[in-house]
């Protein structure tokens, strides 16, 4: 052990410096978090409302719920109880139930394609979709947002639940472009089959999980 050639920084000084810097930074971060929290929550609410109103035109308010095997329960935070599926109930101006919106996700060509779909209890069908997020190829996969013929599939997509209330009566299926023959089928976009199928699969998975639990209790949602 040779003696240090130059004055060495004492350990206490190093720890003190890092401690003080960490404390100041901690205060800054928590301050920023607290002061932006409200604006961020408000932004999220607006984004959600806009998306729900798009798939269920005519809706005026949105409430969050979870459908569990035991029934429907309102959600306050983001935590969904085990075995539950999150959905949004949309009400019109007079307070009547307009429809249900829920999120569906399917693996697309580049990444997961997430869509929000609107469900109407009257016709037991999906009445509209809107893309939440995707990274599909511009000009090809992103036609799912603009292709009118494809969006027509979701004006009255049949998602009736079977009499035993265990699953959909007919699974939602994406079929080859031009070969749609039933109300529960989705006519794929020519050249964008992978993305079309991702939407179909996502909706099928989500509807199979949500609707059997929801339909039996949908009366509880009426205010």
């Amino acid at each position, binding site marked *: 052990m040779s003696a240090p050639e130059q004055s060495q920084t004492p350990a206490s000084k*190093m720890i003190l*410096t890092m401690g003080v*810097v*960490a404390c100041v*930074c901690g205060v800054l971060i928590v301050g920023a978090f607290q002061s*932006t929290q409200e604006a*961020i929550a408000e932004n999220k609410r607006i984004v959600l409302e806009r998306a729900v109103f798009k798939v269920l035109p005519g809706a005026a308010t949105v409430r969050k719920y979870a459908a569990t095997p035991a029934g429907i329960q309102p959600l306050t935070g983001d935590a969904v109880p085990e075995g539950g599926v999150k959905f949004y109930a949309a009400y019109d101006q007079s307070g009547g139930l307009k429809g249900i919106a829920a999120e569906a996700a399917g693996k697309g060509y580049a990444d997961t394609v997430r869509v929000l779909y609107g469900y109407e209890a009257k016709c037991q069908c999906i009445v509209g979709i809107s893309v939440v997020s995707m990274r599909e*190829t*511009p000009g090809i996969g992103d036609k799912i947002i603009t292709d009118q013929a494809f969006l027509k599939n979701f004006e009255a997509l049949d998602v009736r639940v079977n009499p035993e209330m265990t699953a959909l009566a007919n699974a939602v299926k994406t079929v080859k472009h031009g070969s749609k023959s039933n109300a529960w089928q989705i006519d794929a976009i020519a050249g964008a089959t992978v993305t079309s199928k991702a939407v179909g699969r996502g909706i099928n998975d989500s509807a199979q999980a949500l609707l059997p639990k929801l339909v039996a209790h949908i009366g509880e949602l009426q205010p």
Partner: protein
Amino acid sequence: MSLPEQADDSITLDTFLEGVWRQNPVFVMVLGMCPTLAVTVSAINALSMGVATTFVLVSSCLLISMIRNLVPKEVRIATYIVIIATFVTLVDYLIQAVSLKLYEALGAFIQLIVVNCIILGRAEAHASKHPPLKSVINALGMGVGFTIGLFALGGTREILGAGNLFGISLFGEHFQPWVVMVLPPGGFFVLGGWLLLFALLRSKPATEGGH
């Protein structure tokens, strides 16, 4: 903050212009390529990313420069990273509060500003050795240079790949977008083009120096 100025701490125009031109982070030093290639699919994304990075760069350089004589050199990198990470977290919350759409478009690249080598590079090479005002001016120059670089890429890619600039259609209905330009390979094509252009522009005065 008014420290006594030493001889080498004089602030000249070059303190600012260093980052904009001579040492431009994108076109000359080719630093921070991860956000440069990834988020420049549109002019507005590029500009927002540039502004966010500039904010982190300037604030962290100011703080680091103010405490430069207090931080023992053994723990300086750890200290700098904590400071940089703090400002990145602030920007993260601010962008969420301003626009969630922008936040989703920039995605993970906001958090990744922490590891942007331009910032730690400036902290280590400049802010830790110079007084606050000079560091801030230098950092601002670097930030402006980075923003110009991102905007040059983002603008070009949006015009070629979508026929728009800031979402406004430039060529009308009949323009067939050059889609590859907004896909990942387009980032490399456009960056290559700009690097070539910059090298040509810089090569004229440099030949006199026998370089």
